[in-house]
C-alpha cells in the first residue's frame, strides 16, 4: 500500500486537472449538505422554541377553567359560565398530593394610566404562587405579601414593557398608577422575559393581588370567583394521573349529581406541549430525510463522473499497473478522489447551510437553531456518500487488464 500523502496528492491533482467538472460534481453534495443543515435547523428551531415556551410557562402545568354554559341549547365557549373559585384551587393543592401549587387567575384587558401616559394591557389578579410556577423573579421591588392578599391592597407588580411604556426613564417603584381609575402603588418590576415562542410579549403584564381584583377591579358574579386556576404537578407523569382526582374533587365541591356534566374543563398543558414537541420532532426528521435525498442524488452524480473519469483514464491506469500498482493502489486512488470531492462539497455545503439557516432565521418567521450535531451529521454523511458511490468506479478501475488498458486510445 502506498502512503496516504502520495495518494492524496495524486487525487487532488486529478481533481484540479478538471476544475469545472469537479465543481459541478461537488455541487450535488454542496446542495444536499446545505439543504440538510437548513432543514434540520428549521426543525430544531421549532423544537427549541416550544421547549422555551414550556420553560417560561411553567413546567408540568394543568389549567382548570369554568365549563360550558348551555342556555336553551346554544353552547357558549369555555368559561362562559363562571363556576371556579379560588378556594377550589386551594382545596386541590391541599388534598391532592400530586399537585404542588395552585395559583388563582382573574384577568382582564384594561387601560392603565400614569400621569399623562396610558397603556392597554392584561391585568391579572393572582398571588405569589403564580410566580413560583412560572419561576419568574423580580428584578427589583418586592413581592405581594400575605397582608396585601388579606387586605386586598392596591399594589401592582409590572412587566418591563409596561414600565417602558408608562414610565420611560422614571423609576416606577412607589409611583401610583391607575387601573380603571383606581390608584395602585407599584411595588415591583419583573425580570424581562422577551417574546414567547408564538411571538407574544411576555413582559406586557400587570399583576395585582387576587383579592383586590375580585373585590375592587373586576366584576364578579359570586364571591371568590376566578377565571381559571393554574396548577403545577410534582412531575410530568403526575399531570396525567392527577386529572381524575382533580375531577372528582371538583365535582364534589360543585355539588354535581351523577347525571350532570362537568362545569369545568381540565386542560393538561404538558400533554399539549409534549404532543407539539413530538410533532415537530417528526417534522424535523421528515425535512431532514427529504433533504438527504438530494445528498443521495449528489452521490450518484459523483459515481457517474468517477465512472467517466475511470474510462477516460484507462491508459493512466494501465501505465500505473504495468509499473507495479496493485489492485488496492488503484482502488485507493479513485476512492480518495471521490472522497475528497465529496468532502470538499460537504465543507462548502456546511458553510452555505449555516449561512442559509442564518438568513432563514433573519428573514422569515421560522426560528432556526444550528447545533454541532446537525452540522457534523450531514458532513460525515457526505463523506460516507463519497466512499459508497466512489467504491464501484474504483473497483471497476482496479479490475482493468493492464494490457488492454495500455492499448486504450
Amino acid at each position: 500500500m502506498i502512503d496516504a500523502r502520495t495518494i492524496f496528492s495524486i487525487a487532488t491533482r486529478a481533481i484540479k486537472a478538471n476544475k469545472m467538472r469537479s465543481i459541478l460534481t461537488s455541487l450535488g453534495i454542496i446542495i444536499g449538505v446545505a439543504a440538510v443543515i437548513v432543514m434540520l435547523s428549521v426543525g430544531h428551531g421549532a423544537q427549541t422554541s416550544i421547549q422555551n415556551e414550556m420553560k417560561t410557562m411553567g413546567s408540568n402545568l394543568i389549567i382548570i377553567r369554568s365549563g360550558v354554559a348551555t342556555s336553551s341549547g346554544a353552547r357558549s365557549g369555555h368559561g362562559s359560565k363562571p363556576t371556579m373559585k379560588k378556594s377550589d384551587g386551594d382545596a386541590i393543592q391541599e388534598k391532592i398530593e400530586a399537585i404542588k401549587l395552585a395559583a388563582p387567575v382573574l384577568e382582564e384587558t384594561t387601560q392603565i394610566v400614569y400621569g399623562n401616559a396610558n397603556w392597554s394591557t392584561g391585568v391579572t389578579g393572582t398571588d405569589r404562587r403564580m410566580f413560583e410556577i412560572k419561576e419568574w423573579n423580580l428584578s427589583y421591588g418586592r413581592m405581594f405579601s400575605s397582608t396585601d392578599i388579606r387586605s386586598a391592597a392596591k399594589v401592582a407588580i409590572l412587566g418591563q414593557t409596561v414600565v417602558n411604556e408608562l414610565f420611560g426613564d422614571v423609576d416606577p417603584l412607589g409611583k401610583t398608577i391607575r387601573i380603571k381609575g383606581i390608584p395602585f402603588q407599584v411595588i415591583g418590576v419583573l425580570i424581562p422575559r422577551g417574546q414567547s415562542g408564538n411571538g407574544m410579549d411576555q413582559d406586557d403584564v400587570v399583576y395585582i393581588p387576587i383579592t383586590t381584583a375580585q373585590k375592587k377591579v373586576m366584576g364578579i358574579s359570586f364571591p371568590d370567583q376566578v377565571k381559571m386556576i393554574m396548577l403545577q404537578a410534582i412531575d410530568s407523569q403526575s399531570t396525567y394521573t392527577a386529572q381524575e382526582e382533580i375531577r372528582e374533587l371538583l365535582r364534589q365541591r360543585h355539588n354535581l349529581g351523577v347525571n350532570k356534566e362537568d362545569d369545568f374543563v381540565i386542560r393538561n398543558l404538558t400533554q399539549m406541549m409534549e404532543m407539539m414537541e413530538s410533532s415537530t420532532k417528526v417534522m424535523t426528521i421528515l425535512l431532514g430525510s427529504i433533504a438527504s435525498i438530494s445528498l443521495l442524488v449528489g452521490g450518484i452524480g459523483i459515481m457517474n463522473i468517477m465512472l467517466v473519469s475511470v474510462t477516460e483514464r484507462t491508459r493512466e491506469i494501465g501505465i500505473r499497473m504495468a509499473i507495479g500498482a496493485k489492485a488496492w493502489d488503484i482502488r485507493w486512488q479513485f476512492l480518495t478522489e471521490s472522497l475528497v470531492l465529496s468532502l470538499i462539497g460537504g465543507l462548502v455545503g456546511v458553510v452555505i447551510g449555516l449561512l442559509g439557516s442564518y438568513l432563514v432565521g433573519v428573514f422569515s418567521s421560522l426560528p432556526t437553531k444550528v447545533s454541532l450535531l446537525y452540522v457534523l451529521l450531514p458532513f460525515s454523511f457526505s463523506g460516507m456518500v463519497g466512499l459508497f458511490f466512489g467504491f464501484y468506479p474504483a473497483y471497476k478501475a482496479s479490475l482493468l487488464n493492464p494490457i488492454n488498458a495500455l492499448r486504450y486510445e
Partner: protein
Amino acid sequence: MSLIELKHITKSYPLEDTQLKILKGINLNIEKGDFVAIMGPSGSGKSTLMNILGCLDKPTSGTYVLDGQRVENLSADELADIRNRKIGFVFQGFNLLSRTSALENVELPMVYANVPAAQREERAKKALTKVGLRERMYHMPNQLSGGQQQRVAIARAVVNEAPIIFADEPTGNLDTKMSVEIMNLFTKLNEDLGRTIILVTHEDDIAHYAKRIIRIVDGEIHSDEKNEK
C-alpha cells in the same frame, strides 16, 4: 541458472468453437546481461510473447521461471509486485502520465515500491541526469520532444534497479537521429550497468544493436542467433 527460462509456453484464445493458438510451445533461456532483439511480422505472436515475458499476461500452459521464481501462476497483485521490482518497461508510445512532470513520472515505480518521498526524488533526479535530462526535470511530457519523452521513460524503467528492461518498439515513433540516440542509451545501459535488455522490433537496423536476435514466425521460434556487429 538463466535469468529467464521459458519451457513449452503456449498461449491460445478461444475463438468460436476452437482455440486460436498464438504461441505454440516456446522454449527460451535468456542470461543475465544479455541484449536480445525479438523480431517477427505482425501477427507472429511476438507481442503476446512480450506480454508474457513482461508478466503482464499469463501463459495458457508451460512454465516461466524469472530470476529463480516460478511466475506463471501468480495472482495479479503478485505479478504487479514482480513487474515493480524486476522489470522496467519502455513502450512505443512512451506512456508517460500527462500533466505530471518528468521527475514525478520517474518517481512512479518507487511510489508503488513504498520508497520514502525524499529518497524517491533523489533517485529520480539521478536517473534523469543519467539520461541527459537534468535541465528538464520539471517539464511536463507535452513540453518535451519524442526523444526526450522516451528518455524519461527509460529513466523510469531503470530507477527501481530492475534487472530487466523490456522495450516494445521503443523507436517506432521517433525519427532516425533520435532512434540512434535512444539505441545508444540502451547499449550503454547494457554494457555499463549490466542490465538485461529485451527489445521487440520489426526494423533490422534497430535489431542490430542487440547481441542476439530471435525471430518469431507463426507462434514459434524460427531462428535464434548471435548478432555479429
